[in-house]
C-alpha cells in the first residue's frame, strides 16, 4: 500500500479568492510508516490531515492510494481505506467502550448495522490489543482522557483500514501517556503493517519515535526521516522567531534560560 501526494495545495474555497493554507506538499509513504506532522499553531496541520482523509477537497494536486485518486472513490470505498481520529469531541459520550468501537465496523455491516461473527472477532482483537477488555462495559463519559483516546484509536483500528490518520492524539495527556500512546501507534504501524499519520506538538518525542516527519512551515513542507531533516536544517526553520531553537547534539528543541 502506497500513499502518494502530488503538489498538494490545501486550504478553503472562498467566493473571491481561495484561502491557501499550505502549498506544494509532496511525498510518498507506505504501509508500516509512522509519520508525524509537526508545525507551529495555525500552520494548517489539521487542514492537511482533513484533506488527506478526504473530509475536505484539496485546492490543487491530488492524494492517491496505490495510484488511485481518493477524490474518485465513493464514500463507502474510502471508508475502507482511511480511518480517522479527530480532535472534535464525539457527539455523545453515552456509549459503552464496546459500542463505540463497534461503530468502527460500519463500513462492513449490512443495512441495519448487524455485527457478523467476523466483526465481533475483529472487535475482540482490538480490545485485547489496546488492553481495553477490562473497561469495555464502561460508558465513555466515565473514562479519563487517556483512556478515551485509546478507545478512539480502537474505533479507527476496528475500521480495519490500511491508513489511519490522527489529529493531535497526544493532546490533554501527561508525558507518560503521551509516550505510551505514541509507542502503541508505532507498534500498530509496524506489527499490523499500517500507515499511520498523526499531527503533534510533541516534537521531541516525534523525532525519537517516528519513522518519518512532515515539517510544515510558512514556506511549505518538507518530508523525510528525522535524521535527514536534522541534517538539512528543516527542523531549525520550524520556529523562526528564535524563542526556541534546535540543538543538534541532543536532537531536541530547547530554549535559553532566562538571565
Amino acid at each position, binding site marked *: 500500500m502506497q500513499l502518494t501526494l502530488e503538489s498538494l495545495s490545501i486550504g478553503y474555497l472562498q467566493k473571491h479568492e481561495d484561502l491557501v493554507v499550505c502549498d506544494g506538499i509532496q511525498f510518498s509513504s507506505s504501509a508500516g510508516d509512522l509519520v508525524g506532522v509537526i508545525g507551529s499553531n495555525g500552520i494548517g496541520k489539521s487542514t492537511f490531515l482533513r484533506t488527506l*482523509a*478526504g*473530509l475536505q477537497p484539496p485546492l490543487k494536486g491530488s492524494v492517491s492510494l496505490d495510484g488511485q485518486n481518493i477524490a474518485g472513490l*465513493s*464514500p*463507502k*470505498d*474510502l*471508508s*475502507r481505506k*482511511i*480511518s*480517522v481520529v*479527530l480532535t*472534535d*469531541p*464525539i*457527539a*455523545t*459520550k*453515552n*456509549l459503552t467502550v464496546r*459500542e*463505540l468501537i463497534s*461503530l*468502527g465496523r*460500519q*463500513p462492513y*455491516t449490512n*443495512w*441495519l*448495522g448487524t455485527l457478523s461473527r467476523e466483526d465481533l472477532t475483529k472487535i475482540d482483537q482490538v480490545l485485547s490489543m489496546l488492553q481495553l477488555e477490562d473497561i469495555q462495559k464502561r460508558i465513555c*463519559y466515565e473514562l479519563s482522557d487517556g483512556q478515551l483516546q485509546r478507545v478512539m484509536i480502537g*474505533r479507527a483500528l476496528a*475500521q480495519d483500514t490500511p491508513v489511519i490518520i490522527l489529529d493531535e492524539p497526544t493532546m490533554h495527556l501527561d508525558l507518560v501517556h503521551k509516550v505510551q500512546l505514541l509507542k502503541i501507534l508505532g507498534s500498530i504501524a509496524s506489527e499490523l503493517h499500517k500507515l499511520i499519520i498523526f499531527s503533534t506538538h510533541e516534537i521531541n518525542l516525534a523525532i525519537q519515535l517516528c519513522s518519518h516527519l512532515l515539517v510544515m512551515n510558512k514556506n511549505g513542507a518538507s518530508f523525510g526521516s528525522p535524521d535527514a531533516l536534522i541534517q538539512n536544517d528543516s527542523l531549525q526553520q520550524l520556529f523562526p522567531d528564535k524563542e526556541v531553537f534546535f540543538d543538534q547534539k541532543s536532537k531536541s528543541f530547547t530554549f535559553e534560560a532566562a538571565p
Partner: protein
Amino acid sequence: MQTLFRNPLAGPFVLGISSGASLGAAILLMGGALVGGAAATYFSGDVALTIAASLGSFLVLAVVVYVASKVRDTLALLIIGLMFGSLTAALVSILSYFADSEELQRFIFWTFGSVGNLSWSQVGILSICVMIGVLISIGLIKTLNSFLLGEQYAISLGVSIARSRFWIIIATGILAGAVTAFAGPIAFIGLAVPHLCRQLFSSTDHRVLLPAVLLYGPILLLLCDTVAQMPSSAYVLPINAITSLVGAPIVIWLLVRKRKMIF
C-alpha cells in the same frame, strides 16, 4: 432529531416543527377569510390538512437544519427554534384576527390537541403516513448510529451527510406533520419519550431506540389522554395541558443534567 442536531433538547415542539405544522393548518383552516370562503371549504378535507401541516413542518425543519449547519452552539439552536415558534405563532394570530368566529373555534379546538374523534378514513391516511415515515426511519438506523460520533466521523464511516439529512428531514416532516394534522400540536411527547427510552434501555443504539420510541410514545400519550378524560367525570381537559405538565419537568431536569451533555 436529537441525534441529527447533537442536542438532547431537540424535538418537534422545541425546534418549532410543530409550530410550522400549526401554521400550515392555520392557513388552511382560517386562511379562507383571506382567500375567499368557497375555496376554504373545498380544501379543508383530511388529505389537504395533512399536506398543509406536513408542508408547514417541512418548511420550518428545512430552515432550522440550514441554520443549524451555520451555528454549532446548542443553546443558539434552541433559541432559534423558540424564535421560529414565536414567528409562526405571530402569523397564526394575524390569521386568527381576520378569521371569523367559527373558523377560529375550529382552529382553537385543534390546538388543544385530541387523540379522539377521528373517522376511519382519517385513521387510514394517518396510518399510511406513519408507515412511510417509520419505513424511512428504519432505513436510517445505521446512519443515525454513525451520527452518534458526530458528522466528521460519520463521513469517514462512508455516510453521505447531505443525503442522510435530506431523508431525516423527509421522515420527520411526514411523521410530525401527519400526527399534528390529526391530533393537534401536542407538546413534549416527542422530546420526552426518547429520553425515557434511553433511561429504560440504557442504550443509544437506534436499533433498540426506534422500536422503543414507537411503543412508548403511544403508551405515554394514552396515559396522558386517560388523565385528560378524567375517569368518572364528564370533563375532558385539553391533552396538551397534561402533556405539558408531564413534559416540562422533564425538560427542566434535562437542563439541570445537561452540564454533562448526555443524550
